[in-house]
């Protein structure tokens, strides 16, 4: 199938409704039969924020301002971004194998599955940002023009998630082990994201954090909220990383997608 660019676009238009259906399905089924339903996207991060704040400020006696932000806001910003990344990449990884029954029977552009899973995670993530706004208002974070720039790290994170998600989706079809490996890798990413500790306190291992593109995104996001402004080296690093993973992911997925069915 020599697919030209216009063909890809026409195909996307044809299946646009499917994409929205898959996204809605993801979100609907996640909260079906729970009493709070979609409200969980707000309650859950709020509760974990409270727990983490309690553990790290009350028990360990650390309090006050982190990176120009009140500790709860600092934690919440980090955790929301990280859990979007982890949820989206995990979802994308499992999406192709999870839709095996469908892939074997009906033709559908296969990227729909990882893409819809990432986008549904992104939508719930955007909803959960309401909590961050609420907590910031309550804790009197000074509004600043830089807040509007916080969209930039979020876009970079989305691009990164799509790239990583496509790569994982492709490989996990051929190697089931990847699901476990990625779980471990995510743990490493989480601990080097400085979600609940102050990154500036690390001096010797700071380079480890700087290598972690998710940390770069979180850092820029926090700096935008606190009004410090974008950190240029991190911005460049995460943008380049995002674009490279996106291109790799798209090319890899595109080249291998016809073999998926033989391995599912």
């Amino acid at each position, binding site marked *: 199938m020599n697919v030209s660019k216009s063909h890809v676009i026409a195909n996307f238009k044809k299946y646009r409704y499917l994409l929205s259906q898959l996204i809605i*399905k993801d979100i609907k*089924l996640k909260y079906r039969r729970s009493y709070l339903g979609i409200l969980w996207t707000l309650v859950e991060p709020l509760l974990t924020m409270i727990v983490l704040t309690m553990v790290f400020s009350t028990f360990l006696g650390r309090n006050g301002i982190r990176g120009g932000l009140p500790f709860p806001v600092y934690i919440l910003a980090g955790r929301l971004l990280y859990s979007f990344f982890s949820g989206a990449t995990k979802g994308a990884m499992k999406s192709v194998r999870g839709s095996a029954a469908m892939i074997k029977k009906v033709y559908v552009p296969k990227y729909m599955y990882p893409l819809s899973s990432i986008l549904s995670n992104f939508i719930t993530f955007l909803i959960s940002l309401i909590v961050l706004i609420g907590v910031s208002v309550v804790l009197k974070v000074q509004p600043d023009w830089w807040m509007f720039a916080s969209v930039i790290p979020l876009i970079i994170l989305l691009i990164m998630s799509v790239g990583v998600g496509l790569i994982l989706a492709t490989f996990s079809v051929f190697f089931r082990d990847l699901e476990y490996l990625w779980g471990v890798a995510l743990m490493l990413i989480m601990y080097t994201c400085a979600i609940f500790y102050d990154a500036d306190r690390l001096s010797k291992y700071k380079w480890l954090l700087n290598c972690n593109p998710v940390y770069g995104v979180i850092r820029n996001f926090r700096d935008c909220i606190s009004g410090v402004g974008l950190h240029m080296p991190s911005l460049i690093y995460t943008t380049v990383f995002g674009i490279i993973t996106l291109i790799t992911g798209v090319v890899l997925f595109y080249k291998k997608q016809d073999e998926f069915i033989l391995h599912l």
Partner: protein
Amino acid sequence: MGKNIAIKADNISMRFNLSADKVDNLKEYFIRFVKRSITFKEFWALKNISFTVEKGDRVAILGYNGAGKSTLLKIIAGVLKPTEGSIKTYGRVVPLLELGAGFDPQYTGAENIYLYGAILGHTKEFIEQRYDSIVEFSELGDFIDVPVKNYSSGMRARLGFSIATVVEPEILILDEVLSVGDVKFRKKCMRYINQMLDGGVTVLFVSHSVNQVRKICNKGIFLDHGELTFAGDLEKAIEIYENDEQYGRAKRRRRRRMNRI
């Protein structure tokens, strides 16, 4: 002539790699890679198949188990990509393979109508317009708001058939689907298919039942071990199918096995 062609298959071949033990984890793969022993046994499910189907033709695909019929249908449906050769289809292909395979068990029947419609590449408006007639055709009544996981297999098949038919296929692929549902619904399906045949839909039909084939088709293709040995007149294809030496051999083998039991 070009406008009247519905399907054009050009030298299609399909290769499967059969490895005795499936390598699906990194460790195995790595060990084998180092030892250079990633060997595959090749299996050609289809070999150099070329044919054209004209619009309005109802083609029966005949052949014994393992002849490559389902593989061919999957290639036409776009699910599988042929290893070699190319296939072109003109018009909307609706595969009726294993009805309801695309359903989400947690979704209700109503939600699945939209989901399945979207999978077949339709817009929201298109499905909304036809929603009522789909529900009516399926005869599910109030069950339409029950999650599909609680459906019986007959109910699921009914819903699947209803969705697939209401969406006006131009090329219909039938793979022994007519053996589902109760007699009443099966008759209804046959009526519907006949109605579509009158409307000039192109059909590809796989069945082992010569009677059903005669009812629906006007042309036949005979596949033998992945090779196209005959394409053309239906009666001739059926004759080959019934008189093939292998058919007799298989029959004898079956009889022998029966005797042993």
